[in-house]
Structures are given as structure tokens and as C-alpha cells.
């Protein structure tokens, strides 16, 4: 179980995340939505260990990992697929996966399983990662995280720069990941996709939670209001 308690994170003078809390349990998909600059990515980066928070704490299975470096969190089973994919450009597809594999926890995932999930990848594993299309690169980025056998998978802007069809394919994978007992924390600007898969929805506005609960408990209008901060006008 991943628990974030009253986490705040700053970009210089600017507070990007205000005392945010969330709980992520196995088998859950927790979607964090919000407009550009709402603090979603900063939240994920702080949970993954890339952005030192200014206050609050991150707990994994009750253990405080707030000050742990990201590479150590990976071995604990907490993996972030970063925004923009960030593949290693001088490495082949397979080498990208091997880097993700090198300090892996034990679990169901390995290179062979990733090639089963994305059958095209086995054939093209020797290609430089940069020769792939955006969607294929995203698949490699997900694969690179999966081979480390995360229990908590953090996905940052999965749909960014991808065609709707590819985005749908990506989201169609999620049930297969959840089957293995994984939990997914998802950050999205594409609200409709997020709502479809999420077991819990949290909307951020300027670093604060404006909506938190099960997606089916909210009307589209409520979500829209929370997303854009239209509360006063809609009341």
C-alpha cells in the first residue's frame, strides 16, 4: 500500500503541491487529473523520489520512504514511467528493457512477458529506441518499468502526444497489469480516458485537491467544475 500524507512540493518560490494526501491499494487504479500546471507531475515526481518534498511524507507498506532516492524505491517496487517516455536514445529497445531489469524485484514480469504483452517488440528489439513511433516508445517505457516488477506503477501523462487509437490500446492493457496485483497511480490530462479506467478519481487545481472519490459518484459537470475551478460560478 502506498500512502501519501500531506505532501507539499515547491518549484523555487512557487508551491506546486499543497498538502496532498492519497492512498493507493493493490489492484486499484487511482487517477489524478487536472489542467496544465495543477501539480500532477510534481506530485508523481515527489512520490518517485525525483523531487524532494518540502513537507509531508510518503509511505510504502507503512515504511517512510520520503527521503529515499528513486533508484532505491525501484527495488522496493515503486516505478515511475516518466512524462515524455524518456527512453535511452543510444540504447536499443532490448537494452532499454535490460536497464530497467537490472535491479528488479522478484515477480511475474520479465523481458519475455513484456514481449508477450507487445508482440511486435520481440522482432524489433535490436532497433534503436528512437526509431520507434511515439506509441511504440510509450510501450517500451512501460515495459522498462514492468520488468522491474513494480507493485506500484506510476504513469505520468500516458496519452501525451499519442493518437486516440494508441491511447485506447494503452489503456486496454491495464486490466492485465492489475490482474497481477499491481496498483496504478495515473496522472492524466485526458479526463475521459482516466475516468473510464479509474477506481478512484482525484482532481487537482493549483496543487490542491478539488475532487476526490469514485468516478461514478460524480456528474460530468461536477468533474468539469473541479477541473477548471468553476465552483463559485456553478453554484
Amino acid at each position, binding site marked *: 500500500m502506498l500512502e501519501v500524507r500531506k505532501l507539499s512540493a515547491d518549484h523555487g518560490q512557487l508551491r506546486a503541491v499543497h498538502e496532498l494526501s492519497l492512498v493507493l491499494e493493490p489492484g486499484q487504479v487511482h487517477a489524478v487529473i487536472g489542467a496544465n500546471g495543477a501539480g500532477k507531475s510534481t506530485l508523481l515526481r515527489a512520490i*518517485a*523520489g*525525483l523531487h524532494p518534498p518540502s513537507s509531508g511524507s510518503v509511505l510504502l507498506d507503512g515504511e517512510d520512504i520520503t527521503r529515499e*532516492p*528513486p*533508484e532505491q524505491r*525501484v*527495488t522496493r517496487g515503486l*516505478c*515511475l514511467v*516518466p512524462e515524455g517516455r*524518456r*527512453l*535511452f*536514445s*543510444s*540504447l536499443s529497445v532490448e*537494452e*532499454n528493457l*535490460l*536497464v*530497467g531489469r*537490472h*535491479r*528488479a524485484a522478484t515477480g511475474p514480469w520479465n523481458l519475455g512477458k513484456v514481449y508477450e504483452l507487445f508482440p511486435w517488440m520481440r522482432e524489433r528489439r535490436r532497433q534503436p529506441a528512437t526509431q520507434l513511433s511515439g506509441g511504440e516508445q510509450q510501450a517500451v517505457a512501460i515495459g*522498462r*518499468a514492468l520488468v*522491474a516488477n513494480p507493485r506500484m506503477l506510476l504513469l505520468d501523462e500516458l496519452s501525451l502526444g499519442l493518437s486516440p487509437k494508441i491511447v485506447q490500446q494503452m489503456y486496454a492493457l491495464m486490466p492485465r497489469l492489475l490482474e497481477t496485483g499491481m496498483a496504478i497511480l495515473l496522472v492524466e490530462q485526458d479526463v475521459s480516458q482516466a475516468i473510464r479506467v479509474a477506481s478512484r478519481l482525484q482532481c487537482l487545481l493549483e496543487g490542491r485537491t478539488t475532487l476526490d472519490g469514485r468516478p461514478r459518484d460524480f456528474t460530468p459537470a461536477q468533474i468539469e467544475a473541479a477541473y477548471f475551478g468553476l465552483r463559485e460560478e456553478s453554484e
Partner: protein
Amino acid sequence: MIAALVQGVLVGGTYALVACGLSLAFGVMRLVNIAHGDLAVCGAYLALVVATGLGVPVLAAVPLILPLAFGVGVVLQLVLFERALRGGVLAPVLVTFGLSVLIQNLLVTGASANPRSLDGGAFALAGFEAGGVAVSWLRVAGFAVAVVVLGSLHLVLARTGFGRRVRATADDLEAARLAGVRVRPVFAGVAGISVATAALAGVFQGLMSTFDPYAGGLILIFAFEAVVIGGLGSLWGTLGGGIVLGVTQQLVALWDVRFAVLAVHVLFFVVLVVRPVRP
């Protein structure tokens, strides 16, 4: 003319040997190591001390020097460069410049400013003639060692898990950490390799010509030029760059020795003006 070409190629190998460590440290850690040439000079002095101290030939001292230099690189990375790299772009330049001055002055104090050279024994003086060109075995050995070292480095980077992590870290430090790469051992290993190759190159420079505590500056400049002419981040490019430098130097020396080194710098300048950025 042909003799100059052959000599140029052979000398170029040694330039590439100094340059590869500089290129690697910059490529992976974004560390501009101003003290790189001085570390090479330290390698030559170390060979001198070990060889005379133990009474063994210089080349027999090399297997002892390499692990020692590797260790020095690791320690420098962990206690000095790592902190400097956290301090922004300028800090590593200033810190390694300070290290350079420190090394030079320690060498002057410890070994005096007199030029020295390493005695390679009969092997260093022997040579052979091929097609009317006299070639010294020592230069051939220096070139061969450079090619072997660059080739092994290439293999390590291309084929091993460590090499994969080095390249991943060089590509994207944050993404590497997110994939579980511990950056410290990667950087320490790269710094170790960098200093070890520099020391090895220093030994060959000491065998082929003289060195003194201030020789590091020129070695550094040549290494920089080899890296830039050959294109950053490519080991074989660095070898090519070294060879271009060596050949230029030798050819110009045919005409007038006084302009040999200047010609190399002019060539470097022209490359910078014509092709400042390489793909």
C-alpha cells in the same frame, strides 16, 4: 613525407588514449576535467617512482599503476567531483582547475621542475624499417595499446551491463535513476577508467619524450582538440581526431618544426568555426 604520415598516425594513437578518458568523463558525467593532463603526467611520474623503486622495467610497472590510477579516479569522483558536479556548470571547471594547479605544485615540490623521461630499455630504442620508413617499436606499441584500450572500452560500453548503465546514465540521468540505476558506482567506475587511461597515456608519453610537472597543460589541450575534431561521444572518432592531430603536427614539422604545434591549434580552431556542432 610517408615517414611523417606514419609517425603522425602512431603519435595520434597516444593523443587518442589521453582523450578517451576526457571524452568519457564529459559524455557521462558532464565533467570537464581540467586536471586530466596533469593526471596523465602523474602517471608518468608514478611509473618513474615504481620502476626505480622496485628496480623493474617501466612497462613491468604498468600493471601496478593501472589499478592504482583507477582507484585514484574513484576516490577523486567520490570526494571531489561528485560535490563539484552538484554545484552547477562552473564548479567542476573551477575545482578541476584547482586540482590541476595543486598537482603541478606538488610535483614541482616532490620531483623538481627538471624534465624527466622514462627509460624503456633496449625496446624503446629498437625499430624496424618498412618501405624505407624507419619505425620505432615503441611508437607501434603505443599505437597498438591505444587501439586495444579504445576497442576494449567500446566493447565494455556496448556489451556489458555496466556499459549499458553508463550509456543510459549519459543519455538521461533521471530516467536511469527511475529505472533503478545507482548513479554513484557508474560515475565512480567511469572516473576510474578515465584516470587509468590517462595514466597509461602518460607512461607512453614519458617513454617517447620528456615530461615535467607543467606538461599537463599541453597534454590537456591536445586531448581536448582530439575529442572536438573527432566528435564528442565517439571513441573511434576520438582515435580519428588523435590521428588527424598527429599527422598535421608531423607534416607541418617537415616544413618548419616551430609551427608544428601551432598548426594543430589552427586546425582545431578551423574545425570549431566550420563545424561547431556535430550530429
